[in-house]
């Protein structure tokens, strides 16, 4: 038996992920060409992947750093447009012609990385002035920046309001760029899965290091954090940029899974799935300060969103309810209100779902919690 609990955790997680991937590859082989997998499940996985990265990255600022940012989709838009435009340019330069081969993979990886880096740079530029503010003021200013970013992209001569399909980039993303059709989505599904796993792992490593400790300290008490020697300005801006990086990566995946890009889909109040409030709902639902919570919540919210729009059962509902479902934002708002009323901490609170703990110490943890509660009760009585 392995004694080192950290090693135990690593081995257990690797094993479980490996088993899941093997099962998945069998499923893909068996159903890869069948209609449902190709038309529904593979695109859903792509969508889930970028939602997971998006929610987890916002959780870094909202949950771990404790700063409400309402402009997260702005960074995603930067990533999406950067990846799309670079891929189109690469195609025009003749780096790749059909979407296969090592050259295309290289372009793909490059696009994802550059998308992240560009978003991080903008995150840095936005973060330096914005993070001097707190609470509501920060929320307003990030909301504003999110809108500004979308408007700037709108007015760029080569990006265009109509999206890349009709804009002056004058080439369809689907045809010549990164955009994957349903068949390619199945072929390249490992890209989405790998990018998601690497991104989440990178965020995990970040929050479980001195950086994570420092930003959680800032969340709990900024004055005490600086009195403990933490350079609060540096950690806040750095984390903001780091989270913007992953929003950019999510944007690149978004560009991959769409035939066209339109800035309207990143606008603050669009009725679709991609707006900054929707991401905030995911983070709050999963638990501010729990990355695994964000992953679970992203999948739940995706399913809710998908079912509202496409579910068969919706047609059986009374008409007035169907009419409400035509405005999904209303449903998200109701979900947010219910979560805040009955479980304000979100599904996971600040705890991470850990396979190791799940198997071995559920009992021990419960005992600890009970003992702790008992003790604080006694302490209260003593006072």
């Amino acid at each position, binding site marked *: 038996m392995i004694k080192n609990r950290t090693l135990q955790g690593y081995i257990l997680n690797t094993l479980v992920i490996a088993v899941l991937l093997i099962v998945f590859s069998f499923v893909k082989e068996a159903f890869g060409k069948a209609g449902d997998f190709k038309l529904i499940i593979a695109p859903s996985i792509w969508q889930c992947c970028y939602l997971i990265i998006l929610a987890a990255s916002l959780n870094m600022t909202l949950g771990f750093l404790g700063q409400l940012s309402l402009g997260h989709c702005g960074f995603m838009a930067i990533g999406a447009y950067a990846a799309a435009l670079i891929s189109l340019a690469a195609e025009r330069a003749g780096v790749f012609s059909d979407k296969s081969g090592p050259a295309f993979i290289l372009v793909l990886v490059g696009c994802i990385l550059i998308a992240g880096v560009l978003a991080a740079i903008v995150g840095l530029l936005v973060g330096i002035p914005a993070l001097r503010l707190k609470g509501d003021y920060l929320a307003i200013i990030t909301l504003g920046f999110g809108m500004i970013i979308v408007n700037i992209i709108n007015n760029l001569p080569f990006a265009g309001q109509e999206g890349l399909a009709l804009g002056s980039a004058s080439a369809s993303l689907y045809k010549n760029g990164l955009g994957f059709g349903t068949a390619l989505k199945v072929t390249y599904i490992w890209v989405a899965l790998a990018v998601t796993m690497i991104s989440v792992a*990178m965020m995990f490593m970040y929050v479980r290091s001195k950086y994570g400790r420092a930003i959680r300290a800032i969340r709990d*008490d900024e004055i005490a954090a600086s009195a*403990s020697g933490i350079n609060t300005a540096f950690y806040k801006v750095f984390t903001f940029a780091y989270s913007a990086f992953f929003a950019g990566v999510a944007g690149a995946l978004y560009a991959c899974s769409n035939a066209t890009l339109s800035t309207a889909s990143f606008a603050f109040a669009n009725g679709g799935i991609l707006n900054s409030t929707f991401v905030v709902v995911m983070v709050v639902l999963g638990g501010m300060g729990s990355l695994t919570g964000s992953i679970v919540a992203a999948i739940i919210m995706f399913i809710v969103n998908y079912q509202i729009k496409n579910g068969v059962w919706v047609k059986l509902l009374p008409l007035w309810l169907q009419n409400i479902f035509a405005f999904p934002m209303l449903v998200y708002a109701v979900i947010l209100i219910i979560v805040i009323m009955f479980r304000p901490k979100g599904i996971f609170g600040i705890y991470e779902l850990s396979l190791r703990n799940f198997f071995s110490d559920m009992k021990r943890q419960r005992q600890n919690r009970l003992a702790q509660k008992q003790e604080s009760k006694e302490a209260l009585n003593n006072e």
Partner: protein
Amino acid sequence: MSDERTPILETRKLGITFGGLVAVSDFNIKIFKGELVGLIGPNGAGKTTVFNMLTGVYKPTEGSVLLDGQVLNGKKTHQFVAAGVARTFQNIRLFKQMTVLENVLVAFTKDIHYGMLDSLFRTPRYWKTEKELKTKALDLLSIFHLEDKADYIAANLPYGQQRKLEIARALATDMKLLLLDEPAAGMNPTETAELLDCINAIRNRFGIAILLIEHDMSLVMNVCERIQVIDYGVTIAKGLPEEIAKNPKVIAAYLGQ
């Protein structure tokens, strides 16, 4: 007192005004290594304001703060901490959602040398540093008998232990001067006595200078070697505890004339 030594802390004509209000003026103090100095005064006298100036939270409008002969004016709070000033707060400020151990580990952050890449790839350097710090933190907690509560969430600790944890966290910053802002506030006599032992233990073990704000006169008279009294931001008396207790100005400030 030999004035040739460089004092750990020296302030020269320190003063601050908020708008037209003079909160503190002409505040001079010298604290040497291993000394425990008390700062007392009636409510609203400006004691905490002095602390805030000594830790860079407020920028003094006149005068200067010297730590080990080094001028710290205009620096930020974390730079004060890096130079060697640590403090506790009048109303406890712990990292409430973090564990007791993490609360102490946070204070080590400025001395951690592993970087972004080390934490992303979990290099041996990362593991080594984290392991060393954990031992160091548990060692610190054991002074306050908190080592077996290391995994507790800080907010769940009883009041007295929260105070102690705050002192432990301040000690973890590896400071030369410790500022304690009413450490015994809200404590019962037993807890205060325990705290007294702790403070003495810290002094003996680390040999640091301590500046203490306190309302509990028995504590102040017992542990402080020198006392400085301020009222309305002005120093009205300095000296040994016995002298202060008899000083008519101090009695007038506390009891009214």
